């Protein structure tokens, strides 16, 4: 298959057509590049702000439309479902100085990490003052890093105890008074019911553990500002109380068979079965069964998050979303203006009404859209729960701490009274780089 050298020339097109082809190629390349470059600006001259949102049922897209002005249009792009994957995608793209992200919805535990890495543009001081006035204290705390508000508190979620009224009646449990984990586990086990929680190896499991430890008066770590030298405090009587509750549920007949792989969705499905009795889950559960299982929807009752220790007020989980502006956005001023609009109490309420994710401000709770959606007693319960919620520690190392807890506390059936001690050592070793996570 030897091709003689000279014969190659026979296949070369004449000079002119070659030039023409090159020009055509360059034009095509230019056209493509122009298409890519103009993607961040509309044809009518207005700026396009791209908002990376966590998946929802359309609330964020709706308010993006409302907050678009003559100067800029806010468009949305959806991030992965999993909170950690959202964090990974945002951080990696921002570290690569991606200017295609202007605004982003950020889960509270990862706010400090992104802010510490210099990936979030500062929020104007006047706006920070206004946001502090407007938002719940828990929402403000979760959005603060190094004394500065680094994201706009948008929605703040909390968990309550959901129960099946028919089951509770059968079990004879008085739900008008605060109940403990021991009580609901025993009631469910004795009456053929289940207690649905989030105990898969993921962030949601740490949310539960954090709530249990906080409910017993403890913390996972303190002095988070010391970074890797923070004090790991999970090995405490409160940590042992939390381990006792998890062990008790995992070993009891009230544990759903899918306990070790249950996330919010699986817990919701378990609660909807005939064995469903109790569940801790976020606010959107109230309307979860309206369309699919109306009989379950009618049977749902709600109460404050269960107590870890009888007599000690529970500290429900805190979740939510803050809106951050990217350092690498080419339109930081417009993005800040847009974010300020997106977190107005009215927009928070519109989003809440469409998605079930509650506002981050008392004014948002008062909005007629929210008032119409939930019974007054439930709204009050949500508000009380947010006010007494225990946010996860704000630290740039949260993903390490959370991962170390997941490694040592999962599966729930392996949890014993020695788990807090094991996990404290492991967290410390991971933070100081002595152990792999």
């Amino acid at each position, binding site marked *: *298959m*030897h091709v003689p050298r000279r014969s190659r020339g026979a296949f070369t097109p004449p000079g002119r057509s070659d030039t023409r082809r090159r020009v055509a190629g360059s034009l095509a390349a230019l056209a493509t590049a122009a298409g890519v470059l103009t993607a961040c600006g509309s044809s009518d001259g207005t700026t396009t702000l791209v908002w990376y949102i966590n998946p929802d049922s359309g609330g964020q897209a709706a308010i993006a439309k409302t907050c678009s002005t003559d100067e800029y249009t806010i468009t949305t792009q959806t991030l992965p479902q999993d909170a*950690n994957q959202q964090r*990974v995608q945002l*951080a*990696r793209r921002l*570290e690569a100085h991606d200017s295609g992200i202007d605004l982003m919805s950020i889960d509270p535990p990862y706010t400090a*990490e*992104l802010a*510490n*890495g*210099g*990936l979030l543009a500062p929020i104007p001081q006047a706006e920070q003052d206004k946001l502090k006035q407007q938002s719940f204290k828990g929402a403000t705390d979760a959005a603060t890093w190094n004394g500065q508000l680094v994201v706009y508190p948008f929605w703040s979620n909390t968990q309550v105890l959901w129960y099946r009224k028919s089951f509770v009646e059968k079990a004879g449990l008085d739900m008008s008074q605060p109940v403990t984990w021991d009580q609901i586990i025993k009631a469910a086990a004795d009456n053929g019911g289940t207690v649905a929680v989030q105990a*898969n*190896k*993921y962030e949601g499991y740490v949310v539960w553990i954090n709530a249990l430890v906080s409910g017993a008066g403890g913390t996972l770590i303190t002095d988070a500002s010391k*970074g*890797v030298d923070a004090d790991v405090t999970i090995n405490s009587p409160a940590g042992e109380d939390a381990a006792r509750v998890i062990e008790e549920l995992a070993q009891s007949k009230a544990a759903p*068979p*899918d*306990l*070790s*792989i249950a996330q919010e969705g*699986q817990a919701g*499905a378990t609660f909807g079965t005939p064995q469903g009795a109790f569940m801790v889950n976020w606010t959107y559960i109230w309307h979860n069964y309206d369309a699919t299982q109306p009989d379950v929807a009618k049977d749902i009752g709600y109460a404050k998050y269960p107590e870890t220790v009888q007599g000690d007020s529970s500290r429900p989980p805190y979740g939510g979303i803050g809106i951050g502006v990217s350092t690498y956005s080419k339109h930081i001023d417009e993005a800040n203006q847009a974010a300020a609009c997106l977190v107005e109490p009215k927009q928070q309420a519109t989003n809440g009404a469409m998605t079930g994710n509650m506002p981050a401000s008392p004014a948002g709770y008062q909005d007629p859209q929210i008032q119409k959606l939930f019974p007054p007693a439930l709204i009050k319960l949500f508000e009380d729960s947010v006010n007494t919620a225990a946010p996860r520690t704000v630290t*740039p190392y949260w*993903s*390490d701490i959370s*991962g170390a807890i997941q490694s040592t506390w*999962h*599966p729930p059936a392996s949890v014993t009274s020695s788990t807090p001690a094991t996990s404290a050592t492991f967290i410390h070793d991971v933070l100081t*780089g*002595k*152990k*792999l*996570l």
Partner: protein
Amino acid sequence: MTATTIPREATKTSPTGPSDRSVAENRLGQKLVAPALIMMVLVTAYPMLQALYLSLFRYRLTTPDDKGFVGLGNYVTILTDSLFWKDTLNTVIIMVVTVAVELVIGFAFAMVMHRIIFARGVMRTAILIPYGIITVVSAFAWQFTFSINNGWVNSWFDWLPGISSTTNWYGDHWHAMFAIMVSEIWKTTPFMALLLLAGLSQISEDMLEAAKVDGATASQRLFKVILPNMRAAIMVAVLFRALDAFRIFDNIFIMTKGAQDTESSSFLTYRQSIEQFQLGMGSALSVLLFLTVLILAYLIVKFFRVDLAQARGEG
């Protein structure tokens, strides 16, 4: 392609050395391959050297101020950590079990594809379908299959001891490992079958005919004629699949996310570098993974005496 029964001596070059024509052909071949080779070196050597350099640092993407030179510290941390060895063991178990099972099933499939007389095209296509499916998609399918909530394994096989409607396949280590390995075997057996089919088609019908005439039974023909003559093809299939299986990632990522200690070496590397942004530690793990694969390939080639050239029919 030559049959493996031809004596090796016969395939060696003559004492007078290669002919001018084969020298010229070789030279042309080298020239044709050169651009691709240079490109490959550029795109693979740079990241490899970069990884080697990064592995000597404590470097986390989100805490850039904390970057510092640690020498071989990352390697020491990794090699003295039980998690690394646990994950390596998992990977080896998955590799050995899946390759062994795939070899047996793959051989049966290869025989079917080779011998079938009617509906040959349909049968070959049917056997190859799993290999054409993207691993992530097949992993999702198998995740649902074994799911306690909506899978069919529990309801179809609840007559077997140890399986009931409440068996949580992702609830403990061995159940989860079983599910992962089943999905891996299902997905890659066709590849094994394809490689073995190539080996099968090399065996001359005359040889089998002769064995038959000599009174060899079917099993004698299989063990004394077919398998020995397929040795090179089998070894290449084992080598390719073993190296492939050692890098297992997708199935674990989709099915368990590494829970129940089902993490593999690749998954550990992914978590360190992608999820935790630990570029230093992640790079050190990547380097170790690369070395492990290299050693594995060397061992397989050495101990099983795989002759890649012979398998390609260039002997």
